[in-house]
């Protein structure tokens, strides 16, 4: 069976050299990753100008090629994500996965498009029922929207914020709020959180931790291995 071509879309810039080392051990040799970034054709200054979040709207956090964090308006990103889908389909990808745990309106696509947001919510509900679970998110202003999303899904949550693109000390500090006896699982709610961060969270709290990038890679393997 030949290698399956999996397209991966980042809302920041590709290649996501911060993500691929954590998942290549899982994906190889069955899956080949082909990346596309919504911000691939823009400079940092252009991104800050053109994609700035709009107050009251859904905003995301992502990463430039050089590692710098950027904050982005979801609505301004949408056409560029759609362009990535078209590009990856033209490159014969058999499936496309969003390298983002955010919620999106529907895109046009001919091959399966996997959006970690609902997939991970379903997997977590399958394991913890109604919870409660602990969730780590990148920024404090995302807390309200994400808490609502989970409570609409029927799961009780405790949320704290610390960016994956900032210092690991801040993550360690934020998660001390999670007490092992009160929550069944911790979910790191951003593709930017790494395996190293997951291990720190686990050591600090003693809880099981679910990480989007590795969970998605394992699900891809379930489908294509």
């Amino acid at each position, binding site marked *: 069976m030949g290698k399956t071509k999996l397209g991966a879309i980042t809302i920041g810039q590709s290649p996501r050299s911060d993500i691929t080392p954590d998942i290549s051990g899982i994906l190889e040799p069955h899956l080949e990753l082909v990346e596309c970034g919504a911000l691939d054709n823009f400079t940092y200054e252009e991104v800050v100008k053109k994609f700035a979040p709009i107050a009251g709207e859904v905003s995301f956090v992502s990463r430039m090629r050089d590692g710098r964090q950027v904050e982005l308006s979801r609505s301004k990103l949408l056409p560029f994500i759609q362009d990535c889908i078209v590009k990856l389909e033209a490159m014969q990808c058999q499936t496309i996965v969003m390298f983002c745990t955010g919620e999106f309106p529907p895109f046009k696509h001919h091959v399966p498009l996997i959006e970690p947001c609902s997939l991970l919510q379903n997997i977590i509900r*399958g*394991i913890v029922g109604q919870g409660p679970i602990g969730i780590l998110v990148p920024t404090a202003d995302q807390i309200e929207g994400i808490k609502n999303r989970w409570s609409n899904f029927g799961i009780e949550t405790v949320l704290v914020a610390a960016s994956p693109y900032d210092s690991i000390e801040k993550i360690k500090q934020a998660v001390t709020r999670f007490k092992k006896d009160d929550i*069944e699982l911790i979910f790191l709610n951003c593709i930017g959180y790494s395996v190293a961060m997951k291990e720190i969270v686990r050591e600090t709290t003693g809880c*099981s931790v679910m990480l989007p990038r590795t969970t998605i890679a394992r699900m891809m393997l379930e489908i294509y*291995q």
Partner: protein
Amino acid sequence: MKKVGMLTVGQAPRTDVIPDLDSIRKLGFTFIECGVLDKFSYDEVLEKFSPEAGNKVLITRMGDGRQVTICWEKIYYLIQECITYLESENCEAIVFLSTGDFPEFEHTIPIIEPGDLLRSITSELVANGPIGVIVADQGQIEHIKQKWSSKNIKTVLVVASPYTGVGLEKAAQALLKAKVKLIFLDGIGYTLKMKQKVREITGLPVLSPRTMIARILEEME
């Protein structure tokens, strides 16, 4: 996470299943097994738990390897007993060695239900299908078909028991001909080798509960 409870709706130990999860044991996990039918003989099982008209049918395995056909409704209380036992043994999570669609039980630790997890992934992947589903027994077809149609997913169901090994190749070929988008092995009895065989014959994605369990435990380790 080190201690995981393995709950079977048949009899423990599941010497037919656990070897396929060896890769997980190598990561340092300890498994504690509990079987819902552990206290009963083969004849008692047939007497007490056989399905009647309208019951949801379940195929499972006795300790000596014999297949039995029972029904879900009669064993729910025994599943709860196993959960309570595994919690008292300080398990950090419980895995249901079954693809069934379970009601809510009382539990304080995570319960990994491979059937539900696989059904969620399938819904994310295939929109309306059609998908192929391989099941162990003719008597399961109706309620399994209904479960998928309530999610608006079209299904083609074929029968090939994992405990007798009969008919798997034919089932795979039938699904290939029916042009399904992926195949779901709807039973814990289907081995890794069977999954590989179906994948080789069809070239399609094949979702299987044993590999799903391994992947979730690896993630939660």
